[in-house]
Each structure stands twice: as structure tokens, then as C-alpha cells.
């Protein structure tokens, strides 16, 4: 815990707080300033049967009659104290609605991440061992194939093959083990592509390092070389890539939950979109940003501790191989 590290940590923490606040303001602006005024159009929808007086009451209760800047201030101070406002449809606190469905999504997302990690490791391991003659090129093509398949297609394929043809799970019982298992695979495959891509590139790089040549010349086998020499340095940068895929996991679980008929954040979003329940949507989107920023903050703070080659200079991380280091930095996009 050097002084430089603490400065770096404090700086990153400050940045994260600023980004979270700005992200909240941004979603607020998107929701309230864009044309169409969905809020009153929902309320005035004759199907909902609100009288003019009720509409006025709801608008007053939500504070929608106040100037936009006051609304923003109220929403922001509520957000900071954990009050996410009221749902326009069910008249219940948004925080409660989210808390009810969060566990299911967390299970799916972590299972999806586990699938992604295992799959990425298998593919990367394969590229080290499968000879060029026997389809190493095919294995190397896997990440770009996985990136080209929409995850709802994977989900439907799995349902068709394992649910319909083999009868392994029943589609109408989305919480059974097998249904969750296949939903996690559908969610994990596109995510694994990004991880595998970086892992393969890093393994290739590490295999050409002098220490690897030395180890090979001492007669170490491929398997031991991989396990004891290459894997650790090659997988450290993956920590940051995994953190970056959190957004993918959240967005993907929205679709996967729809395909598999699971309840969760995704189905909550779906319902809120179709009923234009903007307070719920805004809360989910800004919480998504909070999760993303926090996970990336943790990854960034952990990384210099895990990898002693990374030096912190002037409050910034400097890694030994800056040239082709994949995606270092909080919110940098994944190198495609």
C-alpha cells in the first residue's frame, strides 16, 4: 500500500462517484426531456380509466408539475439516499420492485459469467494444445463466431434441441435447474467470446517470452508450461475485461429472461417498457451504471495489487507492455 497506490485509489474513487452521478443525470434527461411526454400519455390512456382529477393528483404526487431542475434535484437527492421513487403503474416503491426480482437475475448473471469463464478458458487452452493440422484455426475462430450469434438465437436453439427434441427440461418451468443451466449457457456464450479473445492473445504473447522458451528448453511439457507459467500472467489482464463484460451480462440477461420466461430485472424492464413506467426504467438503467462502475472500480483497484509488473506513476497505472495491453482503464471499451 504505497502512497502512490493510495493516491491512485482516491482518484479512481472520485472519478467513479462523478460518473455515477452524471449517469443518473443523463438517464433523467433522456427520460424527461425527449419528445413524446410518455408519462401523461400513459395516464391519459383511456384504458387506464383515470379521471382528470386523479391524473392531477398523480402528477402532483410525482412532482411532475415542478420545474425540470427541481424534479432533477428531488430525484437525485432521493437516488443518493436510496429512494428510487414510485412506480407509475403499481404505485409501489421502485426499490421494492427491484429488490423482489434481483436475486433471480443475480443467479442467472453469475451462472452466465461462470459459463463464460469456463468456456473461454477451454477455448484458450485448446488453442495451445490442438495442433495447427487438427483445427486450431477453427478454435481460434470460435470467439468471432460467438460474437456473431445473437444470444436469443442461442437461447432458442437450446430450447429447441434440449427442451423440445430431447425433453431435458420443460420450458414452462423456468426456475428448474436445467432451464437455468441452459439460460446461463445462452447468456454466457457471447460474453465468453470477449474473454477468450483477450486470453488467447495474451497466451500467444506470453508463450513467446524468454521465460517460456527457457522453460521449454528445460524440457517442461506443454501442459505444465500452460498451468505453471503461462496462465497466471496471461489471465491477469482478463480481470479488467471480465469487469467490462458486466454491462453485456446485464443487457443479455434482459433478453435471456424473455426467451426463457424467467422473472427478473429483465422481465421487470420488459413490463415497464410496455407500460412506459419510466421511474422503474430510469432506476434500473442507473443501477446498471452503478454496478458497472463499481465492478470496474474494484477491478482497477485490485489489478495493481495482483500484478506486480504494473507500476503506478503520477496517479495512473503504467503496465509493462502498454502497446498491446488489452483494455486497461475503468470504462475503456473492449478491444474488438
Amino acid at each position, binding site marked *: 500500500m504505497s502512497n502512490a497506490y493510495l493516491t491512485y485509489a482516491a482518484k479512481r474513487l472520485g472519478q467513479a462517484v462523478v460518473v455515477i452521478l452524471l449517469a443518473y443525470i443523463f438517464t433523467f434527461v433522456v427520460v424527461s426531456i425527449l419528445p413524446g411526454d410518455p408519462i401523461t400519455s400513459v395516464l391519459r390512456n383511456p384504458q387506464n380509466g383515470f379521471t382528470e382529477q386523479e391524473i392531477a393528483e398523480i402528477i402532483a404526487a410525482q412532482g411532475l408539475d415542478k420545474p425540470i431542475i427541481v424534479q432533477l434535484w428531488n430525484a437525485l437527492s432521493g437516488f443518493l439516499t436510496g429512494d428510487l421513487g414510485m412506480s407509475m403503474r403499481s404505485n409501489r416503491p421502485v426499490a421494492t420492485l427491484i429488490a423482489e426480482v434481483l436475486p433471480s437475475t443475480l443467479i442467472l448473471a453469475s451462472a452466465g459469467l461462470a459459463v463464460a469463464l469456463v468456456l473461454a478458458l477451454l477455448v484458450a487452452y485448446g488453442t495451445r494444445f490442438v495442433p495447427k493440422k487438427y483445427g486450431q484455426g477453427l478454435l481460434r475462430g470460435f470467439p468471432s463466431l460467438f460474437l456473431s450469434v445473437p444470444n436469443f*438465437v442461442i437461447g*432458442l*436453439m437450446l430450447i*429447441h434441441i434440449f427442451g423440445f427434441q430431447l425433453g431435458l427440461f420443460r420450458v414452462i418451468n423456468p426456475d428448474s435447474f436445467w432451464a437455468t443451466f441452459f439460460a446461463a449457457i445462452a447468456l454466457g456464450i457471447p460474453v465468453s467470446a470477449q474473454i477468450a479473445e483477450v486470453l488467447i492473445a495474451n497466451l500467444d504473447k506470453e508463450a513467446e517470452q524468454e521465460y517460456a522458451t527457457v522453460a521449454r528448453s528445460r524440457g517442461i511439457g506443454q501442459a505444465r508450461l500452460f498451468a505453471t507459467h503461462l496462465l497466471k500472467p496471461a489471465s491477469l489482464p482478463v480481470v479488467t475485461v471480465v469487469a467490462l463484460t458486466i*454491462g453485456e451480462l*446485464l443487457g443479455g440477461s434482459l433478453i435471456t429472461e424473455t426467451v426463457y420466461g424467467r422473472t427478473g430485472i429483465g422481465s421487470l424492464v420488459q413490463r415497464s*417498457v410496455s407500460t412506459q413506467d419510466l421511474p422503474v426504467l430510469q432506476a434500473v438503467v442507473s443501477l*446498471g451504471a452503478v454496478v458497472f462502475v463499481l465492478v470496474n472500480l474494484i477491478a482497477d483497484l485490485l489489478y495493481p495489487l495482483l500484478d506486480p509488473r504494473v507500476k503506478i506513476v503520477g496517479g495512473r497505472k503504467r503496465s509493462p507492455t502498454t502497446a498491446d495491453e488489452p483494455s486497461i482503464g475503468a470504462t*475503456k*471499451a473492449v478491444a474488438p
Partner: protein
Amino acid sequence: MSFVSNPSLRGSGSASRFAAFRLPVTVALSLLIVTIVLAWSLAPSLFTSYSPVVGVPADKLLGPSFAHWFGTDHLGRDVYARVVYGTASSVTSALIAVVIGVLFGGLIGLISGFLGGWVDVIFARLVDVLLAIPKFLLAVIIVTAIGFETINAAIATGVSAVAIFARVTRAEVIKTRQATFVEAAFLSGGSRWFILWRHVLPNASRSILPLAVLQFGESILVIASLAFLGYGDPPPASDWGLLISIGKDYLKWPWLVYAPAFVTILTVLSVNRISRWLRKTD
């Protein structure tokens, strides 16, 4: 004269020069597929004689055959015709998304990279914010706010891609600005805007192109996902994502899902291959 027979020198003549320009087979194939898809979107009626909207009820849910390449759906419509006619909206909307991303992202990156200072700081925060919001959620909330139409899905996808273009353009601009020839242009009295236009922009655009192509493929996927969730044009439109979404209720007739899915995957795979090739040849 032993080195003449050295095998490593073989082909150093015109043959290797030809080889240097030869397309890899997969790239040629990818270009062919993308060309066909573009042709589908420009003139769908040249590729099928069936109507994408009116079906023959007696022919409903037929399997793939010579008469109906991709089979028919629950209303007896030819699925191949539906896919071909749906291409225009699936592909043009992805193009619109990329154009939005390139224009706005490029502009932000160009200005913040070139001017630096407080402009750069402000734009950098904006880009951080855009990157922090999970892309698909951002697209969903934007399309909800502006309405469920394919064109709005394209706008939402484009906005969610602005950040990545801004970041890459900024990095390229900063790299170019430090080049000696730009310094020379400054010293010989070139104005800021002239240098920006004449030197910085062309150099930056070279690495934007592969990214734009890659983003084109990703936009196809994002827009298909939005259409799948029902946030695009409603039926009888036949966007690829919408076709798959309709097909999921008829999984006993799996070609209704697999045919449009196959076309989507093949297109995105080809686009990605072209992007990787562009990056490598650059």
C-alpha cells in the same frame, strides 16, 4: 550462385506481388455474402417472386423445399421472401446507427482530441458516462422514450455507439497531432482548421473504418435484439429479429427460427471478417 536456388527466394517476382493483393478466401466469401445482402435490401423483388405479406393459407408451415427455400410460416407466407424483404430495414437501420455513431462520436473525439484543455475534460466525462451505462439498457431506454419504431431503434443503437467512436477518434487525433508533419504544417503557417481537415481527419479516419464496419455488424445484432423484444416496427414488417421472435412461438417448425437466424449470423460473421481484414491490411 547458390543463393538463387534458395527456396526462400522463390516467388520474389511478380507472383508474390500478385499474392500480396490476393484476397483471402474467407474475405472474398464474406464480401460476396455482404454484396448479396445489400442487393436484397436494394431490390428484393429481383430475388423472390413471393409476396412477403400475403400468404397462401393452404401452404402454411411447409418445410424447406425447392419451391420455398426457407419453408413457409403460419400464414402460408414464404419465409425466404420475408427474410429478403426484411433485409432493407434490418440493414439500413444498422447503417443509420453506424452513421450516427461515426458522425457524433467522431465529432466529439475530433474536437476534444484536437482542442484539448477543458473541452477535452468535459467530453471525456460525457464519454465515460455513456460507456458506464450498459449499452443495451441505454438503447432500450432511448427507444422507449422516443417510440417503438425500427428507425428509433436505429437511433438508440447509434447513440449507444457514440462513446466508442469518440474514444477511438480522440486517441487517433492525439497520436496524429504529435506527428512531425503536423508540427511542420503548424510551423509553416497552416491554420488550425486547415490542419484538422487536411492532415488530422484523413489519418484518424483510417482506423475508424474497421471499427465502423465492426460496429455495423454489432448494430445488426442490437437492432435484431430490439426487434426481437418488440421494440421495432410491428408485423407485417419482417425485420430479422422480428421474424425470429415470431418463429419462437412455432418451435415445432424450427425453420421459422433457424432460417432468419442463419441469415443474421452469416451476415454479421461476414461483416466481422471484413473488419478484421481491413484492420490487418491497414
